[in-house]
């Protein structure tokens, strides 16, 4: 049942228990900063309120686990793997109906969070990683890792440089074993797609994937499906053009969904990309607490990259009042950083992201992207041409 540990437990995972602090000492200690480890072994600094929120979150995670187990009991194990709508015209209409009903249940369920023990299995199948893996020989990952062992490229050099700088201090990631695992995943991927090679930011994404998936191979496939199918293309290649596109789409959405904030920030000459670029490239892993990040990823892997917009908009929306009171860039950044660092309860964020922001279809977002692409290309091109013309001058 829920709570039984999966086979390959990372050593740190269940060792930390947060002390439960009683409300009576609450007020006096509320300003004290305490350091503790969260569910995934990250050291978190917060006050007593934060500790209590994290304890509540743990309890909610447990309850959510019970819901999932109950569903497995009634619908059969792996019921969620057979929910894809529109496939299999051979299905009888009653089966189709139950698949559809399951799909709706699943969508709601995933927004409430996948229990950490089930995450590897659910992510792997729902994201399409399992399918991707099934198209190549079983030994693909091992072969790839062996084939590239000892090779030195600009990508491997940058990876080696970044390993100790990826979540330094983490009880597993920041050990020789953790570094080696992360290295193999990133290096293998850099050879799989030489256009991407290695881009800073992927180190954080892959590190978190390792923590969740527990095996390098599964983490590798999750990274592959993420870059090749889930996210907009060219997010991490060459001049990050995909990321530039996303940033422009985001700005338009902010102006539409949070017009007061957009106007205020514009008056301060604050370009929102100054903070949101990192959110998009690291998928919030450097900004949000780990369980909150993974709850966002739960939905990304099921519904797609459009979810990043919902979440990013929600962060602004949640702090509308405070943001409207800011006078300069530093204050804006402060508000946003304080907010993201303290979002210990994922539901606080996701409720706003999905209930208040309103749904945006992948279709709408795709249209927006198409619209921005030529602009981005033009801008990037102009920069390069200017740089080149300047070289000519110097001769």
């Amino acid at each position, binding site marked *: 049942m829920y709570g039984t540990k999966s086979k390959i437990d990372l050593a740190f995972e269940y060792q930390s228990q947060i002390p439960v602090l009683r409300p009576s000492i609450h007020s006096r200690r509320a300003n004290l900063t305490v350091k503790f480890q969260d569910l995934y072994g990250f050291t978190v600094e917060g006050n007593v309120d934060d500790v209590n929120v994290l304890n509540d979150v743990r309890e909610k995670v447990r309850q959510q686990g019970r819901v999932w187990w109950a569903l497995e009991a009634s619908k059969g194990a792996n019921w969620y793997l057979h929910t894809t709508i529109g496939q299999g015209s051979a299905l009888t209409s009653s089966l189709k109906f139950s698949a559809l009903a399951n799909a709706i249940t699943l969508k709601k369920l995933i927004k409430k969070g996948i229990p950490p023990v089930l995450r590897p299995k659910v992510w792997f199948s729902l994201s399409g990683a399992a399918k991707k893996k099934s198209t190549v020989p079983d030994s693909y990952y091992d072969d790839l890792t062996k084939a590239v062992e000892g090779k030195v490229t600009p990508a491997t050099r940058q990876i080696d440089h970044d390993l100790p700088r990826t979540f330094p201090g983490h009880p597993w990631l920041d050990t020789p074993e953790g570094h080696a695992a992360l290295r193999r995943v990133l290096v293998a991927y850099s050879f799989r797609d030489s256009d991407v090679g290695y881009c800073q930011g992927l180190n954080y994404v892959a590190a978190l994937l390792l923590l969740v998936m527990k095996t390098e191979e599964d983490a590798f496939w999750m990274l592959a499906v993420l870059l090749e199918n889930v996210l907009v293309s060219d997010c991490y290649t060459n001049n990050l053009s995909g990321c530039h596109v996303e940033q422009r789409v985001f700005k338009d959405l902010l102006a539409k969904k949070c017009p007061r904030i957009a106007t205020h920030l514009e008056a301060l000459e604050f370009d929102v990309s100054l903070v949101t670029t990192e959110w998009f490239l690291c998928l919030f892993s450097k900004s949000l607490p780990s369980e909150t990040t993974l709850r966002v990823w739960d939905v990304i892997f099921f519904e797609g990259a459009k979810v990043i917009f919902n979440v990013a908009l929600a962060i602004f929306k949640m702090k509308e009042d405070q943001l409207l009171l800011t006078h*300069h860039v530093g204050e804006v950044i402060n508000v946003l950083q304080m907010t993201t660092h303290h979002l210990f309860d994922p539901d606080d964020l996701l409720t706003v992201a999905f209930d208040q922001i309103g749904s945006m279809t992948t279709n709408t977002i795709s249209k927006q992207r198409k619209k921005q692409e030529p602009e981005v290309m033009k801008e990037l091109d102009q920069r390069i041409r200017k740089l080149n013309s300047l070289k000519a001058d110097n001769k």
Partner: protein
Amino acid sequence: MGTGKTSLVLRFVKGQFSEYQESTIGAAFFTQVLSLNEATVKFDIWDTAGQERYHSLAPMYYRGAAAAIVVYDITSMDSFVRAKKWVREVQRQANPNLIMFLVANKADLEDQRKVGNEEGEECAKENGMSFFETSAKTAQNVNELFYEIAKRLAKANPSRQTGIKLHGRTQETRRRLFCCV
């Protein structure tokens, strides 16, 4: 790779140095205040990511900057070459009144030096920049660098700067500072 931009900024802002600095994605933002006799300078510092492909994001950070620090690592000729490229880009594309500094970092690693002091000097002179050799590790010349920036900023046309009045009594001028390479 890793010329020590973040380390320099942290040395200046927090007085600390750590071997393993989280790698910067996009850019990190810091603030620091320096009081000179003649003025108080408030720095808004953008510390940018070093990987080549991140350069396409740079305009967003140097737009509106009052000063820029281009950093290279004295133990890496490659970083010096890249620094020169940056100097050209920033000179051409950023605000023409931008004050630029060329910084040769990791001066504590004298025995591994690949870029001579004169080479740095000369490059700076050619481009009308001030030149400093620093070590974020030993703190050598770090405060001197930022004091010089503050002085130059305070001197350069104070009226032209975008001043923002804060709620307190003092009127401060905020300056955006941009660190690259």
